[in-house]
């Protein structure tokens, strides 16, 4: 946070949370926060350019064990994107798995100021926070993986939702996490037995189904006033014909009443879960079916997880999926088991416009954004780096804003796009207001961060502002892409961090974490079982497990009381 005053004048402001749609409006910032007026400010003349709140990324893999393993086992990715250190910046490397410094700089250059690390193995929470500390500029948070955990599976089996509630409260606090992340529920545990799980299969040994896991965690999450809903990577990711499983998962939590004014389930990287067909030969887009579901229901939000063509590094806690992918490509693959909690896999992947499957995948992500009518239900992501690196967001923005651009791209890709995807027939083009929604307004709201000053420019909000070097009338897709890649200015907490596309300051970001406040009696009861697990199965002791305060040097705590 910068002390002093800043005035941004002559900007054309898009601030959807406050309903500001392309108005010429001054923005005043004092001591890092948006205020009504300033007296003696430093002035930035936006000169009629597009002004938005700092971007908020709802789902990205930027720190932690598997990101670091990805860097280590892909030196060839490291050499792409090498930049020498400057007076301000440290040395940068990497394209799909950039180093921590490059991650901060590149997001900031795109006008983003908050990024959610979407999968933190609880046992690796320290590592994740250590890396987060090394990412400059960005405010951040991390979602601990809770669904394949033996404690969770035990409580789901016995039907003790209250004790499950106590456990999720404990693990979120212990990891300084932000909410409940679910990745291939049951399937990652089954992978430890060499298997995978469909929604109603039985998890080996535990005798519960993924459906029961999702429903129980959905209920447990809403026992607290959690800022975010459960964040779900549904079962059967990347399998042809998985769209039915995806919608069936959404249906599981339909009856649950959210504890706050938000969705009950955020479905992530939905592109990977919107597949029709029965095999890779008759593979087709079912984005229309998923979008139709989202249009008709209020309890689900999605992020698109759209493909960026080219080489990337896939990494997920969904171990069996990574193994399937490795079997397709024959490229290098690594796999990891996290004791009682979760697992992960990593393998490189090339998305090629010459491949019919990759072409249809490419179409699906954009179809989801274009077919979901209400942009407040959809977020722009690439599931960085799984569907492509975050540095591809400007490409996606230009695609969504220009049918012409989509047509030109489709013409160079496999003709399957015309038979087995809907994209070529969609006329809709996003305007800048809608782009602002899917990149900051919606994402801040779905994460509950709008109540904590993120994703908008109302009085009291954080002084996080992106000034894009384009006029609101710009229609040239190439120029739009360029403008969204490198801002004219990015301002973080009232401090100019990017100017004319160059990083000029690298303040440390804040880490947001949630403290669910669970009833003491329930916690005591739960701890008996948990301590037994530590004693018998964990490689660390109970007392050494929780992440100490020192790992979060710039904390922002959000308390989540139990629902009355």
């Amino acid at each position, binding site marked *: 946070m910068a002390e002093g005053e800043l005035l941004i004048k002559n900007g054309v402001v898009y601030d959807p949370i406050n309903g500001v749609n392309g108005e010429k409006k001054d923005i005043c910032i004092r001591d890092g926060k948006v205020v009504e007026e300033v007296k003696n400010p430093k002035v930035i003349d936006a000169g009629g350019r597009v002004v938005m709140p700092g971007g908020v990324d709802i789902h990205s893999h930027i720190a932690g064990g598997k990101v670091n393993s990805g860097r280590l086992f892909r030196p*060839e990715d490291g*050499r792409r994107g090498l930049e020498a250190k400057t007076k301000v910046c440290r040395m940068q490397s990497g394209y799909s798995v950039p180093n921590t410094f490059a991650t901060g700089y590149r997001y900031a250059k795109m006008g983003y100021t908050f990024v959610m690390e979407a999968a933190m193995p609880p046992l690796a929470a320290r590592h994740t926070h250590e890396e987060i500390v090394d990412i400059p500029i960005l405010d951040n948070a991390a979602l601990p993986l809770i669904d394949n955990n033996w404690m969770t599976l035990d409580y789901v089996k016995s039907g003790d939702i209250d004790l499950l509630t106590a456990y999720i409260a404990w693990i979120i606090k212990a990891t300084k996490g932000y909410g409940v992340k679910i990745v291939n529920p049951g399937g990652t545990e089954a992978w430890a037995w060499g298997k995978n799980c469909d929604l109603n299969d039985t998890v080996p040994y535990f005798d519960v189904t993924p459906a029961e896991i999702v429903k129980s965690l959905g209920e447990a999450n809403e026992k607290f006033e959690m800022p975010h809903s459960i964040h779900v990577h549904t079962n059967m990711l990347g399998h042809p014909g998985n769209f039915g499983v995806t919608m069936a998962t959404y249906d599981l939590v339909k009856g649950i009443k959210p504890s706050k004014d938000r969705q009950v389930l955020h479905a992530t990287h939905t592109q990977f879960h919107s597949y029709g067909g029965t095999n890779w030969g008759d593979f087709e887009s079912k984005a229309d079916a998923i979008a139709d579901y989202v249009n008709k229901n209020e309890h689900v939000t999605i992020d698109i997880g759209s493909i960026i063509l080219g080489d990337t590094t896939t990494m997920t806690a969904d171990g069996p999926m990574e193994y399937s992918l490795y079997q397709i490509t024959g490229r290098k693959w690594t796999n990891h088991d996290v004791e009682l909690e979760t697992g992960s896999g990593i393998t490189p992947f090339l998305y090629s416009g010459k491949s019919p499957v990759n072409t249809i995948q490419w179409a699906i992500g954009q179809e989801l954004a274009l077919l979901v009518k209400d942009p407040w239900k959809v977020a722009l992501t690439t599931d960085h780096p799984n569907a492509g690196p975050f540095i591809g967001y400007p490409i996606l923005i230009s695609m969504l804003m220009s049918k012409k651009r989509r047509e030109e791209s489709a013409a160079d890709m496999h003709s399957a796009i015309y038979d087995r995807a809907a994209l070529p027939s969609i006329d809709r083009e996003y305007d800048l207001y809608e782009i602002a929604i899917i990149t900051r307004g919606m994402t801040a709201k779905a994460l509950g961060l709008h109540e904590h000053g993120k994703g908008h420019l109302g009085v009291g909000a954080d002084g996080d502002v992106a000034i894009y070097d384009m006029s609101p009338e710009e229609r040239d897709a190439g120029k739009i892409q360029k403008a969204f890649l490198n801002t004219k200015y990015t301002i973080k907490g009232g401090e100019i961090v990017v100017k004319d596309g160059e990083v000029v300051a690298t303040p440390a970001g804040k880490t947001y974490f949630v403290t669910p406040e669970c009833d003491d009696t329930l916690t005591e009861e739960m701890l008996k079982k948990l301590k037994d697990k530590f004693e018998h199965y964990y490689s660390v002791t109970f007392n050494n497990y929780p992440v100490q305060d020192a790992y979060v040097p710039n904390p922002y705590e959000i308390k989540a009381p139990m629902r009355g």
Partner: protein
Amino acid sequence: MQTIRLKLKEEVMSGNARIPVEVDSLTPDKLVGKNEAEIKAVKVWWGNKEENTGELFDVRVEGEAGSAEEVKIVMEGDLSRVKHIGDGMKAGEIEAIGDVDMHCGAMMTGGKITVKGNADCWAGREMKGGELIIEGDAGANLCAMYRGEMTGMTGGKVTVGGNAGECAGQYMAGGEILIKGNAELLAGLNMHGGKITIEGDAVMPGADMTSGEIAVKGKVQDMMPSFKFAEAATIEGEEYKKYIGDLAMTEKKAKGVLYVK
């Protein structure tokens, strides 16, 4: 014709640390048209410091050149810690007198490099064209890929007068390598194009190869069991057994050819 003589100053390598010098900025295509003073001002890395060429080398320019093709660079002195000689070179000629350090001729696309001595690891890495002659021995990973990449040398010609270290031609996709001596473990590992001729002995050549050709004139130690005998063959009047492999990469992909005596 122009000859640029670059003699590494003795004091550069006189310290105990023998900090390496990286000279990828000193190729004929980058120095053409520069006079002696300008060449002395070209930056080279010495450890983690950028120095002027003139600080580390005695520079002497003889004659004139209209294009890079007419430039010959002669490097002298103790070059055993001089890395990236001719790295990325496009045209002209470099002669290095003595042993050279890693990455000599890496990513070169044209021209000719002659090493009058041994070359350390990664000589000819990801080479695309031109000619590299190493009169002595070559270290490991001759003409290989960068770590993690799946394509090594794609074009050009490399001749090694002596022996080659491990993994010569790893992930090689094109071009030619002639090794007059022996090749250590795993020559042509993951090879998928191009040709390697080993006049001496080789150990486990061709493992995981899917295309391309390896001929071993000497003995093969630990022949990969995953190669299938195809037929007898005669090359330049000599009898060979022709094998196809590596079947470990599945029968469909195994299109590599290995000739052994």
